[in-house]
């Protein structure tokens, strides 16, 4: 368990207040726009920033407790902090950088081994180099390795990909996935990119202007209307946990089974039976009262309107139930009126596009948007 419950106020009006408890394993994304306070949260966990009040505990180890006067110094917390700008020591070689934390770490039960980290991150050929000769992506991989070798209790990653271009991001993401899948370290991952969050995270904590908006399993949080101001209207959507059910090589399509039926998507590079995540944005879900016949949309699912929420401006948020799953849709208020959408109404959901996010460590391409 990672328990965080902190409050702090800064000169200049910024105030942070958040409290959540997330599992002591897997990736927890701290998501929000810049200035939302994401980084401040992990700085507080690392001990770099001191909250005015509250409590921080990681796996039963109390780092900070204002009520009991506990404030463990940074170096004794053993948090592996990966900074956005890598922060490799310029006067040391890559190997000495990697060993810096390792040399200062205390004996732990199952230490992370140097060779294993070098192999995991593919940094063997870089060991004798100096940091200023590395590319941005290489630097970030070394920084991750350095944090891992300090034998941390958890990893804190502060937008490790934000300073990189798309090609470099695609280079690092598979390593982060391996990290998630092959180490048992809990990871707090700060990001403002929903694609990264969906690809990596199990748990999501959303922040907006220093306030916690939502927290919970990614799929559950993503479709909450409370996420609207965080995601922006056009990114609100549903995350569906799917299993590859069959491939159709003749058309180069795959079928994904989920709690509400089946989705047809362009062939995914995964074996039948493997898990994938499909993301359906609300704006890509259209609604019909009767089953449309002559349409190109191949994902047509019977649904029941569960909730209709009219917004200011032209749009309305509709929550649909498809079998056991829920699906968020966004249509105009005019359409709501024209179709007389109200809770309980049986409709057809037309899904125009599905994004499939690979959760496979060997899969090295960036997540792809598939028209369906």
């Amino acid at each position, binding site marked *: 368990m990672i328990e965080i419950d902190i409050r702090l106020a800064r000169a200049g009006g910024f105030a942070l207040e958040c409290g959540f408890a997330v599992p002591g394993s897997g990736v927890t994304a701290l998501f929000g726009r810049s200035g939302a306070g994401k980084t401040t949260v992990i700085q507080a966990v690392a001990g770099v920033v001191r909250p005015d009040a509250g409590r921080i505990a990681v796996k039963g180890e109390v780092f900070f407790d204002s009520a009991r006067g506990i404030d463990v110094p940074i170096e004794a917390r053993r948090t592996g902090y990966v900074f956005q700008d890598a922060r490799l020591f310029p006067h040391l070689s890559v190997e000495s950088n990697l060993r810096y934390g390792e040399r200062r770490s205390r004996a732990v039960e199952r230490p992370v081994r140097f060779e294993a980290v070098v192999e995991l991150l593919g940094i063997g050929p870089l060991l004798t180099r100096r940091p200023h000769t590395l590319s941005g992506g290489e630097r970030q991989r070394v920084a991750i390795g*350095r944090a891992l070798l300090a034998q941390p209790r958890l990893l804190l990653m502060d937008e490790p990909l934000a300073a990189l271009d798309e090609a470099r991001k695609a280079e690092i993401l598979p390593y982060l996935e391996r990290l998630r899948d092959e180490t048992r370290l809990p990871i707090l991952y700060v990001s403002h990119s929903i694609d990264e969050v969906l690809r990596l995270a199990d748990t999501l904590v959303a922040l907006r202007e220093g306030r916690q908006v939502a927290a919970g399993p990614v799929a559950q949080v993503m479709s909450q209307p409370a996420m609207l101001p965080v995601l922006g209207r056009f990114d609100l959507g549903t995350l569906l946990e799917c299993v590859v059910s069959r491939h159709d090589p003749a058309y180069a399509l795959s079928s994904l089974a989920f709690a509400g039926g089946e989705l047809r998507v362009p062939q995914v590079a995964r074996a039948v039976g493997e898990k994938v995540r499909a993301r359906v944005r609300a704006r890509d879900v259209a609604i019909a009262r009767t089953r449309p016949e002559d349409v190109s949309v191949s994902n047509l699912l019977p649904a029941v309107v569960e909730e209709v929420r009219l917004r200011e401006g032209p749009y309305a948020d509709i929550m649909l139930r498809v079998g056991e799953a829920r699906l968020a849709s966004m249509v105009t208020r005019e359409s709501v009126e024209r179709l007389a959408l109200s809770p309980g109404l049986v409709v057809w959901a037309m899904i125009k596009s599905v994004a499939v996010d690979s959760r496979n460590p060997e899969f090295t391409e960036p997540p792809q948007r598939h028209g369906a």
Partner: protein
Amino acid sequence: MLTPEEWTAVALSLKVAFWATFWSLPLAVLTAWVLARASFPGKGLLDGLVYLPLVLPKVVVGYLLLLTLGARGFIGQYLDAWFGIKLIFTTAGATVAAAVVSFPLTVNAIRLALEAVDRGLETAARTLGASRLDVFFSVTLPLMLPGILSGALLAIASALGEFGATITFVSNVEGQTRTIPLAIYSATHVPDGDAMALRLTLVSVVLALGSLLLAGLVDRRIRRMIGRA
């Protein structure tokens, strides 16, 4: 080429400059750190005190040294009585004078280097398990190295040229306190001293130029070493 008397002055100058720098360097690093990083009441006053020798007439600095560290000075008398340390008319005294005068230059160079150190790197080191002291020696100090070395070379150069404070504090004693500048001064006061003054002037120019070239060389080396090239 040089007379024995001139060699004595050159050797004494180098000796005084070396030891003055050697002893003042750790204190200069500490002072620079305090001025750059610490905050406490009276910091402005300390700041002023450190830079005072730079702006005061050197003769005044020498006279103040005489008042404090001289044989009857309020510190000097105990130095003599308790430790048997005599500064007046001695090389040790000349070293003190040179150290005091060059101190502000050294502190300034080191302070600039310290302020240029990315504090984010220090934070990173602490998250990796290093204590504050450990961080200072393993990250901050190595990154300050170019500044410390250029500070040291500045100190040596300024100690080599020290005149006013030395002659006021420890007088002009051959073999004890008569460094190159004092020897030149003496030479200009005796008949036929011109040749000697000229030779020592040449030595001064060579030493100054040499230390400047050395400073540039060392600086480039270190910058390459710590990856700032």
